[in-house]
Every structure is written in C-alpha cells, then in structure tokens.
C-alpha cells in the first residue's frame, strides 16, 4: 500500500470496498517514516504502538462512515495529546510525557476516527521560521535536504511532502503554517481567527494563534478543516459561526471572481522566479473567468514591527506558566524557590524565546506601554482597515506566500531587514485575523517549490478553498513529488 498518490476521498473508497485495511494504511505510514525520517527528521515522537492498536480496533468496526475513518495523520508538538509527550520543540518540556487531556482539535480528529501516528518537530514554542530553533533537531526539506522546510510548523509540512502521513496539523501565529507549506510544496491553511478552537494548543500569542491543516491537496485540506472547526466551550474566543462543508464547495467555478493583488506583496524583495509564477497564476485565473487588479495595503511595511511587539508581549505573559513546578524540567542547581524559577527558565528556554520575552516585557513595562504596545495595537487597527477597504471591492487577495523559495540550512540570515521582508506577505494576515491558504504554484530552477497565497474575508474559507482548488485542478504542481529515497 502506498498512499502518496491518493487523496483522502480515494482512500475512503478503497477502505469501503475492502481493497485495503486501516492497518495497511497505518503500516504504510509507519514504514515510510522508518524509511525516510532519518533524513527528513520531521517527527519528534512516533507512537507506533497506539497507532497500530487503533488501526486494528478500527478494522474490527463495521461502520466506516466517520469523516476521517482510518486516515493516518500527525500533530505539531505544541498541541497537547493525552498521554503522548508534548514538547513544543523545547528542552523545557522534554519530560512532559503525560499530558492530561487532548486538545479540542485532537479530540475532533479522533471523533472522526483519524489515526494519529506521532508528534512533529517545530521551532521552540513556535518562534522561528526554519525549525533550526528546535531543541531536538533541524527538519530537512524533502525537496532538497540541504534546505530548511520553513517554520515554525516545518515538521508538519515536511511530513506531508515526504509522504509520511496524509495530513498534519500546524499552528500559525505569523505565517507558521503557510510559509513551510510553500517551502515544502504542500497545501497549508491558516483559518480565520476563532474558526478553530485553541484549547490545548500551547499559547504563543493568543490574539494571533490559529490551528490549521497541512495536506497534499486542497480537497483533503478542506475536509480536515471541516472536522476541526467550530465553537468550543473550552475556548471563549472560538466563533459561533456555522461550519460549512468546505470540501463540497469545490466546484471549480470562479467566473466573475474579483481578485486584488497588493503591490506591497510583489516588491523588489520578491525573487523574479516567484513573481513570474504569481503572474502565471493570475493569467490562469483570467482564463477561468476571473479578473484581477493591483491594489495597495499601505500599512503592510509596518506589519512586522507591530507583529514583533504584540506577539512578543503576549508571549512574555503566556510563557510565565513554565516555572518548573507543575510540569517541565526543574534546574538541579536551585537552592531556593526564586532561584528555581530563574534557573529553570534560564536553562529551559532557548535563545530566541528569551530574546522575544525581553522585547515583550520591555514593550509592556511601565513607561513604555503607550509608546510601544498601545502604538502597535493602533497600527494593527490600520492594518486591518487596509484589508477591510480592499475586501469592500474584491473577493480575494492573491500574492506569493513567501518572497523566495526555501533557504539553506545554517544560512541564518539575521539581517533584520531580510527577515522582515519575509514577514510582509504572511504577518499582516494574522494581525487582521483573516483566513489564507498556500497552494503549490511552481518550482525554482533548482527544483524548490513556491506557494501562491489566497487570502479571504473573515470566515470566507469556502471561497478561499474554491479559488485554491480551481488553480490546483488547472495545474500539475501538486502531482510532482520530491525524489526522496525509498519505494514510493
């Protein structure tokens, strides 16, 4: 059994016709992990025993109607899983082997009878865009192992691209689902803020974080989002909105669709090959009956500064819970309680996490609050209004997900200007709270994938999926697979 070329819908049919068993599927996933994960390093934890047990249990069932019956998937390691180690990519939580409950999204996957095979690598506490900030390992891009998979959900994107599982969950605070999806040539969705419950997703920046699916195709992605969406009484910020059947709205019909293309997303910082791929996509949309026009999101250039203040401020408060008392690693050196906090946090958190907490604490401290934090919140309002103005006249916004393909491992370009140029296309979407997807839209001459980003109005995921699907069905990018070793 090799599932790499099959959609969830096709596998569902094969299961119903008894052509394959759930055990075949799960074994195929586990075998693929054994075959390629020593190169890709997407997984922090593989739960072989429970995955096989669950598969055998599902194979005993006569009712196979659940929406993700027997489908193998994996979860980013900042989403808690009952009894399965959850590290957030941090050495601080290396001993957090026994979480007491499942995140709501994990509950929902299990209700839909998906099989989770393990937990995926990420930048520590989701701070980073390469997985190089993980305390455990750097994940490698399946298209070229010398390159990063992107981040922070780099393990989630690489695992799908490498054919290790059919779907994964990631989290996206400032691009952490879409950027790795673009770098790994897969489909990644950041839903509207509030669409998906955050209960059990370890908080980084609570006003920005959202959980979303990564898959090989748009249809698979829509199906996963259908399962994990909806109001949750455990998350007061989850929305009361109805959840449409996203996967049933994929008609391919986009006649009359009005597309806006922000000039700020196609600046000189954008690689010419990426720009060409986006222009080709727009031509394709025209041929399908859509129209496009250039627009401006004038406050985009301030988005990175706003993002770093707000996300770091929220993080400095959220990460206060890691104190070496209730869970996590406690410093051996502490002789009194205050030192226990100080030393445990000093030894437990990595460098990037500390840097962000210093910025956050500085921006929130008395005397600075008005000048930094409140100012950032005001500019956030203007950034959101930019989107409101464009969406008054257009259905979707389209542009590149990232200005370049994946960079090399170890390149670590710390020039802030380069880093912030990378944030311009992803961060404003989280600040505005709107949904956005990345779909594969081309390859560099070196064979690294690019992503096309489609951004919608609040709670217009159905439109976003329809527009993404129309592009995917008219192109072959999603059918090209990375040339990793092994049988598939």
């Amino acid at each position, binding site marked *: 059994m090799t599932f790499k070329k099959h959609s969830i819908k096709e596998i569902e049919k094969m299961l119903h016709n008894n052509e394959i068993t759930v055990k075949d599927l799960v074994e195929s996933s586990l075998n693929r992990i054994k075959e390629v994960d020593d190169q890709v390093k997407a997984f922090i934890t593989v739960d072989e025993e429970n995955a096989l047990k669950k598969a055998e249990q599902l194979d005993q069932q006569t009712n196979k109607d659940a929406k993700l019956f027997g489908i193998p998937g994996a979860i980013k390691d900042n989403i808690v899983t009952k009894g399965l180690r959850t590290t957030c990519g941090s050495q601080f939580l290396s*001993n*957090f*082997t*026994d*979480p*007491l*409950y499942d995140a709501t999204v994990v509950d929902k996957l299990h209700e839909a009878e998906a099989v989770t095979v393990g937990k995926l690598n990420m930048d520590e506490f989701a701070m980073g865009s390469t997985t190089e900030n993980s305390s455990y390992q750097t994940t490698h891009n399946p298209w070229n192992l010398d390159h990063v998979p992107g981040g922070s959900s780099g393990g989630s994107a690489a695992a799908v691209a490498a054919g290790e599982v059919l779907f994964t969950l990631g989290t996206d605070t400032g691009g952490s689902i879409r950027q790795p999806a673009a770098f790994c040539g897969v489909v990644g969705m950041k839903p*509207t*803020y*509030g669409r998906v419950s955050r209960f059990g997703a370890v908080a980084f920046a609570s*006003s*920005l974080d959202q959980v979303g699916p990564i898959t090989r195709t748009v249809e698979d992605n829509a199906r996963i989002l259908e399962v994990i969406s909806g109001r949750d*009484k455990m998350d007061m910020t989850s*929305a009361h909105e109805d959840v449409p059947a996203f996967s049933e709205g994929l008609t391919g019909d986009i006649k009359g669709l009005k597309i806006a293309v922000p000039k700020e997303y196609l600046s000189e910082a954008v690689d010419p090959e990426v720009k060409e791929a986006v222009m080709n996509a727009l031509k394709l949309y025209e041929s399908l009956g859509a129209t496009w026009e250039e627009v401006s999101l004038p*406050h985009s*250039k*301030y988005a990175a*500064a706003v993002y*770093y*203040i707000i996300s770091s401020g929220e993080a400095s408060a959220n990460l206060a819970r890691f*104190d*070496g*008392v*209730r*869970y*996590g690693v*406690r410093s051996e050196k502490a*002789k*009194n*309680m205050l*030192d*226990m*906090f*100080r030393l445990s*946090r*000093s030894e437990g*958190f990595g460098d990037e996490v*500390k*840097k962000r*907490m*210093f*910025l956050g*604490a*500085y*921006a929130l*401290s008395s005397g600075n609050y008005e000048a*930094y934090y409140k*100012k950032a*919140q*005001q*500019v*956030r*309002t*203007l950034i*959101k209004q930019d989107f409101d103005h464009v969406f008054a006249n257009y259905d979707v916004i389209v542009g590149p997900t990232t200005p370049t393909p994946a960079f090399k491992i170890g390149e670590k370009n710390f020039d*802030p200007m380069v880093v912030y140029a990378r944030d311009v296309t992803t961060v404003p979407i*989280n600040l*505005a*709270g709107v949904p956005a997807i990345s779909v594969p839209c081309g390859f560099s001459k070196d064979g690294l994938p690019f992503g096309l980003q489609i951004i919608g109005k*609040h709670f217009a995921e159905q439109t976003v999926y329809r527009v993404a699907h129309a592009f995917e069905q008219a192109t072959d990018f999603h059918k090209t697979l990375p040339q990793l070793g092994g049988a598939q």
Partner: protein
Amino acid sequence: MMSHVSEDKVKQLADMLRIAVTEEEATRYTEHLNKMVDYVKCLDEVDTDGVEPMTHAIELKNVMRDDEPKQWITQEQALKNAPDHEDGQFRVPAILD
C-alpha cells in the same frame, strides 16, 4: 545605531521575567533588544491620533455561562507531570534562604 536600552534595564527585565542571565548574556540581549527597539521605532511615522487600539482579531463580547461544577482532573493526575511532589502537593525548594 542609537542605543536606548541599558544593560541595567535588561537585568531588571530579566528579574521581572524570572530568567537568570550571565554578564555575557546581559550584554548580548541588550544588543539585540536595542536593534529591535530601533526597528520598531518605524511605527512613529504612522499617524495614530484618534485610532482605537485593536486588542483582538474578531469582535468579541463578554461571554457568560452558568457556573457548573464538574469533574476535571484528580489530585493524582495534577501531580503526574510535576518534577517533585510530596503528600499530594507540589514540592519546591525553601522559599527563604
């Protein structure tokens, strides 16, 4: 590059954040924080007079619910992931030296 934040201020922040820093770390984090502060100063260009601060991505109203007791986790479970515990309680080093 202009330096706004002193090393002493960073040590004070480290104390508030309950993160122990060495002298070398204090110097390094001060340097980084100053770079970030210089960068985010670009927001000063933006006229925000009369602009409401945005605290959340979607409109939220107070959400009320009934206060119903329910079984959550047991004491034993709560202690399961703790680095140290004794007699059903979290155990920590002495509060006073």
